[in-house]
């Protein structure tokens, strides 16, 4: 199924990933890629909207850290955040300058100009009825001159252009970080951008995704067999459940007890997967082997290496055993130690 997608171009902010999570929270599929992907990639991605992330650079120092020009030519909405706002301003003919000092932390901004992005979104209002928002700032540079066609949509005492927009082209930009939880109404702003401004629906959610994921696995694997190292952790557990649903007996799991698991962990894994779901699980107790190799080793990195290496050893040996062929032929081996 083809989802409506948002493309996030990353300029290296520590919190860029949060943008992707905020978008996904809105049940909209998105992907994050480095800002310097090719123009062709962006066209082929067919984004419904594009978000430019923050980043540690200055637009006037890092000349090559720009959004590919196609971003502004595709005819889709664009949201610039922090550095993303600055590069948008500079690339479209505005001006960015160092503000002399870094602004880091909470700031109160006033929404202006009745923009689509902030309309009806506020934490409180002042005596004149202007909407006020608590946001999180982290920047040294700021936009000092708007590009042609833009208006101010937010301002603060220290940052007169804290937000700008060209509502005809649907280009929006904010100096603060709506993706961090400190910006209280950040979630509403993302909802506004992806749903109202970009026109994305709510077509990304896990209950619906189950079937899509199953179909994908079936298409990829066909009639071939799959092995999976089951660890008791969330990720491998979900993979096991998904693959079992998708390909049933074509899946064999290997659960290695290295003697370093939590209490009853092996038992719980066998209960959930082998007995309740009927997944083929080979349970290997390799405690002695692991303990043997860990004897007299006290350096943490060394221990990690040994545990990783022995896991590979055991996993490899197990998947090579003749019983594996039996398992492949459809014999259940629940809980064989």
């Amino acid at each position, binding site marked *: 199924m083809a989802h409506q997608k948002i493309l996030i171009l990353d300029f290296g902010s520590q919190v860029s990933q949060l943008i992707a999570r905020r978008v996904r929270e809105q049940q909209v599929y998105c992907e*994050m890629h480095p800002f310097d992907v090719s123009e062709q990639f962006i066209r082929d991605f067919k984004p419904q909207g594009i978000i430019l992330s923050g980043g540690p650079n200055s637009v006037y120092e890092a000349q090559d850290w720009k959004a590919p020009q196609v971003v502004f030519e595709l005819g889709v909405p664009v949201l610039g955040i922090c550095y993303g706002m600055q590069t948008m301003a500079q690339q479209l003919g505005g001006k960015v300058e160092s503000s002399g000092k870094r602004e880091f932390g909470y700031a109160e901004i006033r929404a202006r100009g009745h923009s689509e992005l902030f309309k009806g979104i506020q934490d409180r209002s002042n005596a004149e009825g202007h909407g006020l928002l608590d946001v999180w700032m982290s920047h040294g540079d700021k936009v000092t001159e708007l590009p042609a066609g833009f208006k101010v949509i937010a301002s603060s005492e220290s940052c007169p252009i804290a937000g700008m927009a060209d509502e005809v082209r649907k280009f929006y930009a904010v100096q603060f970080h709506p993706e961090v939880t400190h910006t209280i109404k950040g979630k509403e702003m993302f909802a506004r951008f992806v749903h109202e401004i970009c026109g994305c629906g709510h077509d990304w959610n896990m209950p619906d995704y189950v079937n899509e994921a199953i179909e994908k696995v079936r298409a990829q694997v066909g009639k071939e067999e799959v092995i999976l190292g089951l660890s008791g952790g969330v990720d491998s557990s979900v993979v096991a459940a998904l693959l079992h649903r998708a390909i049933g007996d074509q899946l064999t799991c290997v659960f290695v007890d290295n003697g370093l698991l939590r209490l009853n962990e092996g038992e719980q894994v066998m209960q959930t997967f082998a007995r309740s779901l009927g997944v083929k699980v080979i349970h290997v107790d390799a405690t002695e082997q692991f303990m043997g190799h860990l004897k007299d080793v006290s350096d943490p990195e060394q221990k990690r290496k040994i545990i990783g290496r022995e896991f590979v050893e055991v996993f490899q040996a197990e998947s090579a055993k003749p019983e594996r062929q039996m398992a492949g032929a459809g014999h259940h081996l629940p809980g064989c130690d």
Partner: protein
Amino acid sequence: MPSPNAKWLAQGTIYPDVIESAGAKTGKAHAIKSHHNVGGLPDTLKLKLLEPLRELFKDEVRELGIALGLPHDMVYRHPFPGPGLGVRILGEVKKEFADLLRRADAIFIDELRAAGWYEKTSQAFAVFLPVKSVGVMGDGRTYEYVVALRAVETQDFMTAHWAELPHSLLGKVSNRIINEVRGINRVVYDISGKPPATIEWE
């Protein structure tokens, strides 16, 4: 070669593991991840890699798990390091230490769940310290090992605060561990934040 049947190796790689960030190019802003997925296996086993979760964030993986019918407690379990108790037993790992730690850890988690604190903390566990201290139990003097409890609250695991667990809860956990796990006679609580400390001890 091994595994005459399997053609695929499945792994629980998730989206944050595969996102290529802009910082990576310059070597900036790129934290080195010691990944506990099964590195090296696909090569040695000559298998194709199947990564059905590689588009998903952790919270989506959990939602998918629930949608697939996995038990809530399994899906919302705190993270556990790949090397397991191997990095929660400081210094040399011995089966005897692992057995003590497993029981102490289970008591801690039990009590957190009972008190409604498990969901409020992002990660909680016990750490085995290979040092002995003196104690008194009944009429006798003891000379046994120490267990440290660690519980943190965090949004993203990049920074974390130690959880301000109620003293009564800590007291109960300590009591139970010392009474029920022969070989431990002292329990301490870790009140270090990240940074400067890490969440795990090793």
